């Protein structure tokens, strides 16, 4: 029995990880670095947190869930589907106002105030934390009423990006991780919104109780909080929570 356990914990395992769409970039890099030093494999599934939540509740075989918010991991813990002790904030999202036009935005909010745009794209505030953050910004700048007629809402942050990238919306709120890599703007023009203008976008991860690879899953969760992963997460424009003593 003992030897059986020993061999099963040292053999290569495959983790199935559900990841919120906004975190796809850093997660791919982190998984690659992890699998370089470990015998295990990691399969990533990207999508909206709401859909993953519904799938997990209905028996989807994921080992780990990286949500775009805190409420869904908490709800899984409440339903006794996730390990309470495993929950941690893996990243704090950052918001940007972005345009595909390199001259549209001059690293400030002037275009929002100036009215010089056809549509303002944002993620649906009801569904996406980045949409909620965008609403916070508009409320704080007292632009809700003026801008509301020009809103177009993506179902998630990836679709919101698509509306702007295709030129159909002049400007819009997206995740910094979508437009920056290694602290450089990939294309267009942007204003990195000061974090004082919106509630923190805390993104939590949990380990799911149904997992058959608890040891490996915990290993990956530890790796996520280590220096290599932190460095990758920051390079995409996210910040990290201060470690509690």
């Amino acid at each position, binding site marked *: 029995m003992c030897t059986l356990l020993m061999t099963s914990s040292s053999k290569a395992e495959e983790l199935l990880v559900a990841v919120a769409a906004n975190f796809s970039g850093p997660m791919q890099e982190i998984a690659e670095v992890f699998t370089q030093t470990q015998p295990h494999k990691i399969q990533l599934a990207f999508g909206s947190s*709401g859909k993953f939540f519904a799938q997990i509740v209905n028996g989807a075989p994921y080992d780990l869930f990286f949500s775009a918010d805190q409420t869904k991991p908490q709800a899984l813990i409440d339903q006794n589907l996730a390990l309470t002790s495993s929950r941690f904030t893996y990243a704090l999202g950052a918001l940007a106002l972005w345009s595909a036009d390199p001259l549209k935005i001059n690293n400030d909010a002037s275009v929002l105030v100036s009215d010089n745009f056809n549509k303002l794209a944002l993620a649906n505030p009801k569904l996406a934390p980045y949409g909620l953050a965008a609403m916070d910004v508009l409320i704080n700048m007292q632009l809700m009423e003026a801008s509301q007629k020009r809103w*177009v*809402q993506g*179902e998630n942050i990836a679709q919101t990006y698509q509306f702007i990238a295709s*030129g159909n919306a002049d400007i819009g709120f997206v995740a910094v991780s979508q437009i920056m890599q290694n602290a450089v703007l990939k294309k267009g023009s942007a204003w990195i919104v000061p974090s004082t203008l919106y509630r923190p976008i805390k993104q939590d991860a949990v380990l799911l109780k149904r997992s058959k690879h608890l040891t490996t899953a915990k290993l990956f969760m530890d790796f996520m909080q280590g220096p290599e992963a932190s460095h990758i997460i920051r390079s995409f424009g996210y910040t990290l929570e201060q470690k509690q003593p």
Partner: protein
Amino acid sequence: MNLSAADWQAIELTLKLAATVTVLLLILCTPLAWWLATSKSRWRGPVAAIVALPLVLPPTVLGFYLLLAMGPNGWLGKLSQELGIGLLPFTFWGLVLASMCYSLPFVVQPLQSSMQAIGNRPLEVAATLGAGPLDRFFTVVLPLSKPGFIAASVLGFAHTVGEFGVVLMIGGNIPGQTRVVSVQIYDHVEALEYGQAHGLAASLVAFSFVVLLLLYYSQYKKSASNMRFGL
């Protein structure tokens, strides 16, 4: 059933969209179906294939290309801007155009098969009685294709009501403009409001069932009356 004001607005918009699309498609598809049913042109195959494309393409493919084509750098976008209409994505008429592409085969194909079923004989008889081509089309082809028109209207309408992927890609979720029932249901589900999602989703299931039931009843009646004439 506990439907909110936003749910009712989505239902009203969906019915308006489906009705508009069905009427426009019937006008457009009647000559197209007739041409496909009777033409001997070598273009008939390619045109029939293009008409059937939305049957096999995932709606996301259609929606993605429409988003690009209707955008400021796409050919449709350039055309609509030159005509002074502005850009079409995120508008009701943008959805109408997209839904027409999406539901096209569901209107063309029933029309075409009922027109083909008429055969040459009734038309030859009408011709010997001195009816010109237009006269033959309106007094012989159209009345004899009535079952095809019923099926085309029902399927075109119902299929537009059930549309989701394309609307998601080009709609922008604007209340009263582009937020249709299927998107509203999706929003409820994603927001974990499963109770409200059930309310709307069950309505849609009931609606689709009734529509199909009516369609099959009308076809059974038709085949029964054919038999009577046959006897």
